[in-house]
């Protein structure tokens, strides 16, 4: 797997609907400076910059790495731009890690962002090539039928999604950076919100956020700062969106990606061996679905784990202690936030939403039509 790689710095912005006080450059710089500060480094200590975001139509800036080179201290250095749909934040971290693991650089800054207030993401997601007319509006319109199919197959009761929404939003109350903070959130409140895409109600879905996340990744001999999070396994998987027979409820790409990461990290029983997971759940029902896809539960059994409270902050396999994508969703950054939050947990730096004694954590992102996957496992012990 090449050279060892560690996360030595993490920086996030406060996620919110509109950051009118900063430009796109100001937003990414804010996250990057916090990551550098965490790593006790300055711009000159960085060898290369990798930036990720979702489609350029979200802000209307084509190939923004060109414009953002100045703000990210990249002048005179190599800079790359990754785009793998919703999984892009995860892929950005993996390309950065790859530069270390491949022995090309000693320290890499990875940054992902979305400033959704600059545009209209649902419009940008609903624009299709003229030869493929679509009846789908936004991501929820695409994913709702897959959720209905999950419910049909598993026989899950209808309140399961709402339980996830309540759990993640309660966790968000403990995360200083989270976007949606709804004091007193409970099942009744979620159930009372309007139906958007059957069975997804308003509070079962993620917000549109402005925000950026950054990480400093380091080779073993260049580690600085407080406790590093060691990268134990990395993988990306993609499958075609229109392949007949593809199972969009339990995609093969997700299963293969998880298996690859577990193999590298020496994990044979994810439920027992992983202490905390940050998993890309933009619609509440994706928690039980991904519990099965990632091997935490047998097929059709994921919703029972959710219902039992196992995935709550005080459960035996806390999922999305940070509040997850349901609470903060600057789309291009959402995957990187999952990867960063996993690293924060094993560094013991997650503050109020810290899972006691977390030593191994999974970061997960997915995108496109549930066809792109990026995952990593990080740990507090050097591999």
């Amino acid at each position, binding site marked *: 797997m090449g050279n060892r790689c560690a996360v030595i710095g993490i920086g996030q912005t406060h996620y919110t609907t509109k950051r009118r006080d900063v430009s796109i450059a100001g937003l990414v710089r804010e996250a990057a400076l916090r990551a550098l500060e965490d790593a006790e480094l300055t711009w000159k200590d960085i060898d290369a910059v990798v930036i990720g975001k979702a489609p350029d139509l979200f802000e209307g800036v084509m*190939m923004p790495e060109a414009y953002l080179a*100045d703000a990210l201290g990249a002048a005179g250095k190599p800079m790359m731009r990754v785009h793998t749909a919703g999984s892009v934040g995860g892929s950005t971290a993996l390309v950065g890690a790859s530069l270390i693991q491949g022995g090309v650089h000693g320290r890499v800054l990875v940054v992902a962002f979305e400033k959704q207030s600059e545009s209209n993401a649902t419009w940008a997601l609903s624009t299709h090539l003229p030869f493929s007319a679509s009846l789908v509006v936004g991501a929820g319109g695409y994913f709702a039928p897959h959720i209905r199919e999950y419910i049909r197959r598993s026989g899950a009761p209808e309140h399961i999604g709402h339980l996830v929404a309540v759990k993640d939003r309660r966790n968000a109350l403990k995360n200083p950076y989270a976007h949606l903070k709804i004091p007193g959130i409970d099942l009744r409140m979620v159930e009372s919100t309007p139906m958007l895409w059957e069975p997804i109600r308003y509070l079962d879905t993620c917000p549109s956020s402005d925000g950026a996340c950054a990480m400093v990744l380091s080779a073993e001999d260049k580690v600085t700062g407080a406790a590093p999070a060691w990268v134990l396994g990395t993988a990306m998987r993609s499958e075609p969106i229109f392949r007949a027979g593809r199972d969009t409820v339990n995609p093969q790409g997700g299963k293969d990606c998880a298996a690859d990461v577990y193999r590298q990290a020496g994990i044979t029983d994810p439920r027992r061996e992983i202490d905390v997971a940050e998993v890309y759940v933009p619609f509440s029902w994706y928690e039980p679905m991904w519990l099965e896809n990632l091997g935490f539960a047998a097929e059709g059994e994921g919703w029972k784990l959710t219902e039992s409270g196992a995935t709550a902050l005080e459960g035996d396999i806390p999922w999305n202690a940070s509040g997850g994508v349901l609470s903060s969703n600057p789309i291009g950054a959402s995957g990187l936030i999952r990867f960063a939050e996993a690293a924060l947990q094993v560094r013991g730096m997650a503050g109020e939403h810290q899972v006691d004694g977390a030593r191994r954590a999974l970061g997960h992102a997915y995108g496109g039509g549930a066809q792109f996957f990026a995952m990593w496992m990080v740990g507090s012990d050097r591999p």
Partner: protein
Amino acid sequence: MREVAVVAFAQTRHSATDEGQSEPELILPSLEEVRRKTGLRKYGFTCSGSCDYLAGAPFSFVSALDALGAWPPISESHVEMDAAWALYEAWVRLQHGDVDSALVYGFGKSSQGDLREIMTLQLDPYYLAPLGLDQVSYAALQASAVKADRARLDEIVRRSRADGRANPHALDLPDPAGEDFEVEPLRPYDIAPVTDGAAAVVLAAGDLARELCENPAWITGIAHRIEPHYLGMRDLARSASAAEAARAAGVGKGHVDVAEIHTQFSHEELILRQALELGEDTLVNPSGGPLAANPVMATGLIRIGEAAQRILDGGAARTVGHAAGGPCLQHNLVTVMEA
């Protein structure tokens, strides 16, 4: 660094007009050609480069994945950049040592929009893009800064177009003629033609590369650098980032037989020849270069592919492939390949 080589290259017969093919249809023949050349149908890693703004719709790379037939699921990534950077990502991935082959491809259909205007959207959105400074206008600023001799530029275009006519993949363009300016000092023929096209490259490591082809084009150096975005912060007559990337890739460590460089405007050849320190005895853009065919997002990958092909064919010992991005050569990637 682990030994990695280009072992196969394929490109479309590029077109100056929309021939009714979708982006996935454009890429399919090149994918099939490199599969046939190598006999490989599965790769340890796959990476592509494209740009949504060429189609005016999000997720160009998603439908390309369908063309690829990525089943069972593959280890794959995408850069919203010229596919030369996808090749760089694949080269880095091969350095890990756990996979031995990579498929890289890029595609673009410039005919679907107005490239000059689209490239304006690449500029700082708050201060520069609203000015409406289009691609040819800012290139003209750079051409003015170079103070290029008109006869020298005409010679570059004449040579590029003649080489392009001899290249079955490039466009058939006439010799430069006319006194009109597009944007002074650039004449219409100083500007790369609007082109649709795609390309694919296969990389392989060590013994697999030796197995797959007789003359692998070994990548002995590859590096890229970006410069400040604002045109006023750079000496437009020079390319510091191309020079630094060339130094890091080791261009100067030996004689360069052939250099394929990403010149979308004739004056860029003068800047890049100097930055890459190419001697008069280096053959520059024998394919015709971007002035003879410029399928945006694949153009840089094609430069690496064309430079590699000279070695694969046994005709050259040491070549350079160069790719550029951003306004006025802001971002440069240099690859050195040896037999």
